[in-house]
């Protein structure tokens, strides 16, 4: 009898622990292992810092705030499996993520089933918000602006006409490359070739194509991630080709310099939707705390993840107040996010009816020759409204 009593007490305690009324969790989903972990970790740590800093405030409101990181491995299947686990944890009221559009699109459909809000610091594919899901938001820019921004800079400022375009065949890389091509051709430039590749080590066939291409390309545009572009650039320069190179925000990681070699990477242009610390005066102090806490430099996606988490936290606070101090539902948080107007590190964050930031920033950058990612030159900042859905 006594044993049964203990068991009952134990089960009751477990039940209380599982469904604690005063715990609120924020989840992150990004690649924490594998090829893209360097970018994904920034997202996790940025969100973690914001949550740590808000803990005291939520304690005062009567809630324990917890961050739960999930590793989507940059893989849609893993992302969806995690998303199912996330929606089954009733304490999770918001998700910061993902890194890859290809993962965010299917995963966000899972969140949508329970109207769990997602705020993305990094997903740039137009389809992420063009589906008009009420729970999906992003604070960064879109590829259908990022690609054209690159094309315009190349055509108008670099005076480049013939471009050799390569992409990595993903939703992100190919989408970006196509948007680049469209604008380039509209401006009067010419695509010498448009090539996709999943290759990770041997880029010789593509390099030979570049050598043999007529007209001679004045620029190579690579829509993809640093893990591929790094070795590509190394082999390209080793073979004596000095053609200028441009990429998108997939290039925006110090790992690019490590893989390509500082000398080979120097001078590479890239557009990004997540500017460096130097582009945001307000981010300097946060970046210092970040470095102190994690021993790593805060890069672009870290800053955007910090802001994304703060958007969710602001909405949570509003929802708790509207709910009379009680824990809000996911639906309520989701609605509050669309009403947020926040002065973040990256500027004003305010969503349109699709979930795009009303005005997102786009940056044109150039890799420094010092090998230090923080030294990269900020060439231009463009603020642009998100285009209407197509």
């Amino acid at each position, binding site marked *: 009898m006594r044993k049964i009593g203990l068991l009952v007490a134990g089960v009751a305690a477990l039940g209380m622990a599982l469904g604690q009324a005063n715990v609120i969790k924020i989840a992150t989903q990004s690649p924490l292992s594998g090829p893209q972990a360097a970018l994904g970790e920034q997202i996790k740590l940025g969100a973690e810092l914001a949550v740590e800093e808000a803990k005291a405030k939520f304690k005062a409101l009567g809630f324990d705030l917890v961050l739960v990181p999930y590793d989507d491995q940059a893989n849609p299947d893993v992302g969806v499996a995690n998303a199912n686990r996330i929606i089954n944890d009733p304490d999770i009221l918001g998700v910061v993520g993902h890194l890859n559009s290809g993962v965010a699109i299917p995963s966000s459909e899972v969140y949508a089933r329970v109207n769990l809000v997602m705020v993305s610091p990094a997903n740039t594919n137009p389809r992420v918000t063009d589906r008009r899901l009420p729970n999906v938001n992003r604070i960064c820019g879109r590829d259908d602006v990022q690609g054209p921004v690159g094309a315009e800079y190349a055509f108008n400022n670099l005076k480049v006409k013939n471009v050799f375009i390569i992409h990595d065949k993903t939703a992100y890389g190919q989408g970006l490359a196509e948007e680049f091509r469209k604008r380039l051709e509209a401006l009067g430039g010419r695509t010498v070739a*448009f090539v996709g590749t999943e290759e990770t080590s041997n880029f010789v*066939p*593509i390099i*030979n*194509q570049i050598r*043999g291409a007529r007209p001679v390309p004045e620029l190579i545009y690579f829509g993809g991630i640093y893990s591929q572009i790094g070795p590509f650039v190394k082999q390209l320069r080793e073979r004596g080709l000095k053609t200028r190179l441009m990429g998108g925000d997939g290039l925006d990681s110090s*790992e690019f310099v490590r893989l390509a070699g500082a000398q080979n990477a120097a001078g590479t242009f890239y557009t990004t939707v997540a500017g460096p610390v130097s582009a945001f005066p307000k981010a300097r102090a946060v970046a210092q705390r970040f470095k102190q806490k994690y021993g790593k430099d805060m890069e672009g996606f870290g800053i955007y993840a910090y802001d994304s988490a703060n958007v969710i936290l602001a909405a949570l606070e509003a929802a708790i107040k509207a709910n009379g101090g009680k824990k809000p539902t996911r639906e309520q948080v989701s609605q509050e996010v669309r009403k947020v107007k926040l002065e973040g590190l990256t500027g004003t964050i305010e969503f349109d009816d699709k979930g795009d930031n009303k005005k997102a920033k786009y940056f044109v950058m150039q890799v420094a020759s010092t090998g230090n990612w923080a030294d990269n030159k900020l060439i231009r900042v463009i603020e642009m409204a998100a285009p209407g859905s197509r």
Partner: protein
Amino acid sequence: MLEQILALLPQVIFDGLILGFVYAMVALGYTMVYGVLELINFAHSEIFMIGAVVGVEVFRYLAPHVENGFILLLIALILGGMVAGATAILVERFAYRPLRKRGTTNRLVPLITAIGVSFILQDLVRLIEGLWHNEFFLRMRTVEDLEGSVELFGGAIFAQTKSFILMGVSILMLLGLTYLVNRTKLGVAIRAVAQDLSTASLMGIDPDRIISRTFLIGGSLGGVAGVLFALQYTTITPYVGFLPGLKAFTAAVLGGIGNIPGAMLGGLVLGQLENFFGTYLPILTNGNFGTEYKDVVAFLILILILLLRPQGLLGQVVKEKV
């Protein structure tokens, strides 16, 4: 279009040759193990990868201390070969031998074991490198001595020092292996075990020892190939062995699996096909098919060759063993 193709042709053939030699070196390991055990040792791809990782680590730690790049490379080749060879022996000892001892006759069981071992090795390396350096992409350190390049035939071919090293080493490997198999006592024993395991053991040969040595030799060759691969293509991940391994296996089949010169020839043919279509597909199809289809086309041609000559290019029609 023709002009464009011809202008690049010498370079394409040269680069295809380099890639072909990489496949050939790995194919040697597949073909040896198959010759002796009739086992398709898929874990050989990971043995190759381990060689590449050892190469990167040797360069990382010894480059500041060893001034001469060629000596450094020699150390890397020896260590890479040794570690890979030792891994191959361990794999044989703990994964394949127990199956053999239990008299498993189903051919699928060792094959599936091989696939399993290959996953284990991948994740083991990933774990070790993750804990050790927190790196996923291992980058081969650049050493000045090995970075030279020349232009041959008035600039028609751009060739790097390391490409010549790669070619030289793989030709040495083929010659050494041919000598070993045909002219030495160990070679005779290997051929005897390959012919008939139980009869060989009646003749005073310890088959376990011979099989172990076969794995050692095949594994070391794979490891050396891995080091040279890392030197040539510079970025290595724990999963880098998979595709070259699969292609090397194909090369071994194309050449006539079990046949050593055949493996070499198969590797070279595959390297040429892949590089040729990788470069020319967009030009030939006017941009409709990009480089991404190079493997499809290369493998289609392989299937065609095998339809016409199922035993492989240099393979003989297998007669029933008596």
